[in-house]
């Protein structure tokens, strides 16, 4: 593995290997001294062309705990507005001799293009409405911690699916792990061609959240951006919350063991009620904690293996 661009590039075995290594990385988080020497002397650039707090800091902490030198760059508005191409921008950084670029970009596919241009490893930290592989891996990690093996488990994903990179990575990841996935959204927020996506057996779609919740083992609520209303995707926030939100009433439809995930940031009162967000079965903060461990594992898989070959 040189790059992590899409969950589609990962086999079931590779996913499980990342998740297993994350377990030992997670233990490091509970030590007083959290630093491992694994990536000493390696340089990682967090290249964020789009605002991010949690993903960027999560990757940064992961790099630092593995003793890599991590540098944050924000590329917001750099390339297009200055007349410099994206290719020139990333080749400049690559020429400095970095080992890895962790890329967040508002345009779908940008990390794939960058990986074709540069010599270093590239990690997709979220590209447009395409993928967010590290998020899907940490979601799987959190769900496995709560539920055990995900084979045959029913995961319900609800929200703005059209614009969600979290959805695309999660769908691929959960299917690799053998979960049954049901996608729930109003028809206006279902990705186009969802019913014929290739390589995506074992999932269903529904417009009726109440009907699918009673069999769910995990419910993943995705953020609905309020600006979608101006795009006419749904009439009002109130209507959305009533129809597709995880309300207090809907909590009562869940099985006792079912867990709640949210990749954050949450819109309390819109897609998720405070009762759901703060419930004992909510994994929201576990996900954040797992995020560092899973990202440490990702960096380890991409850089430590390569280093040991040298």
């Amino acid at each position: 593995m040189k790059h992590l661009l899409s969950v589609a590039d990962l086999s079931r075995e590779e996913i499980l290997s990342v998740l297993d290594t994350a377990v030992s990385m997670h233990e490091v988080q509970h030590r007083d001294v959290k630093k491992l020497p694994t990536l000493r002397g390696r340089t990682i650039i967090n290249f964020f062309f789009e605002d991010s707090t949690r993903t960027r800091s999560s990757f940064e902490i992961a790099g630092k705990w593995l003793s890599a030198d991590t540098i944050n760059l924000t590329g917001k508005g750099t390339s297009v507005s200055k007349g410099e191409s994206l290719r020139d921008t990333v080749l400049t950084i690559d020429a400095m001799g970095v080992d890895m670029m962790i890329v967040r970009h508002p345009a779908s596919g940008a990390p794939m293009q960058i990986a074709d241009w540069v010599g270093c490893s590239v990690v997709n930290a979220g590209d447009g409405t395409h993928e967010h592989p590290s998020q899907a891996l940490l979601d799987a990690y959190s769900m496995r911690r709560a539920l055990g093996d995900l084979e045959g488990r029913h995961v319900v994903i609800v929200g703005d699916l059209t614009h969600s990179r979290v959805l695309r990575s999660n769908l691929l990841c959960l299917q690799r792990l053998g979960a049954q996935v049901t996608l729930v959204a109003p028809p206006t927020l279902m990705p186009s061609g969802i019913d014929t996506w290739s390589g995506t057996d074992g999932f269903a779609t529904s417009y009726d959240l109440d009907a699918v919740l009673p069999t769910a083992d995990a419910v993943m609520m995705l953020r609905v951006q309020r600006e979608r209303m101006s795009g006419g995707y749904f009439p009002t926030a109130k209507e959305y919350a009533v129809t597709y939100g995880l309300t207090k009433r809907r909590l009562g439809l869940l099985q006792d063991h079912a867990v709640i995930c949210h990749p954050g940031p949450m819109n309390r009162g819109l897609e998720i009620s405070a009762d759901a967000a703060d419930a004992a079965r909510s994994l929201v903060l576990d996900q954040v904690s797992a995020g560092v461990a899973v990202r440490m594992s990702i960096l380890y898989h991409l850089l430590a293996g390569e280093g040991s070959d040298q």
Partner: protein
Amino acid sequence: MTARTTTRPVLVRGADVLGQGTQDVLVVDGRIAAVGSDASADAPAGTQRLSADGLVLLPGLVDLHTHLREPGREDAETVSTGSQAAAAGGFTAVFAMANTDPVTDNTEVAERVLDLGRRAGYVDVHPVGAVSKGLAGEELAEIGLMARSRARVRVFSDDGRCVHDARLMRRALEYVKAFDGVVSQHSQDPRLAGATSCCHEGELSGRLGLPGWPAVAEETIVARDVMLARHTGSRVHVAHVSTAGSVEVIRWAKGRGIDVTAEVTPHHLMLTEDLLAGYDPVYKVNPPLRPTEDAQVLQEALADGTIDVVATDHAPHVRQDKEHAFVDAAFGMLGLETALPVVSTVMVRSGRMGWADVARAMSSAPARIARLGTQGQGVVAGAPANLTLVDPDRQTTVDATLSRSLSRNNPWHGRDLVGAVHLTMLRGRVTAREGLVWGTEDVPEEEL
């Protein structure tokens, strides 16, 4: 030799004229003097003889849809370099779209483009006039003045943008009736496919997370425009048709006697949406590449005449405008040099069309739509000697670096195409041969 080929008669010997039989063709003083057995007998002393065994002779190709980028983006293409690419591609006339900087929405810019074309002398360059001032889609450009100018503009288009306001489109259609003009529409409802829409809306756009460009955004405008053409009794031309649904509407409209014509690009005939899977902006074009099913319907529609014309939508871009993230990169791809080879490969080799059909779709029909009296007349005595010789069996591997264009955004790079332009002649003067080109100022260094 110092003699200019313009002044010297040429006898084209043994060419397969329109693929319908071998004939000799005599060219004197820029016109076809004789075709057939008379040609050789009528050849005056000093006639150059050009052996065309195994070659197909077509009337010079006419491109209704080219972006030459001058004025404004001379780093991407100039009228001269675009003309050279056109001549190398077998064209003797091209229509230069109006989305230049400044926009071709007035007489001055139109005549400037015309003059730049004449000075270069590789092909006839005809400016397309903008429909609306500054392509803003709000008020009519000086359509009538452009029509009366030396450029005699007959084709009007806001290409790159859709004339989406129904009332403005109606007025434009009405207005051009005064001089038998035509409005060429870039059919894209901006409310259904906005500025960022760049991938055919469907399973692939869903998977790739790219903003979808739904077929219906084209089809609703085509449907509206044919009804406006019927209402106004005017002529509408549908630029770069890309979907099966648009073909259905156009077929229906033609059946009702509505004066609609349509073009398809070589890339929409041959390339399909799956090429976008790697996010390579060389495949980013507007309208986007469509699924295979659409390409097949477009091929059938071209063969049966529902689609009248093949037009290139040649759209040069400098490297740095393409080397962005997919949604940020410029739309468009080169087309002038590969159009004939692509049509040959997709339509002729497959048996869907004969060379006479190619002559219709790439010469006579576009010339007729643009009301061009000097082009597309066919290979007949008395017609201007605008001719293209094609080697129908020659296989070439496209090499983007060999292009006459200033730009390199060539989606055909590395592909094998069968059928190559051998020679292009503009009013009896050789403008291109085997990739070499000659303009007005040049004298061919070697004899034919």
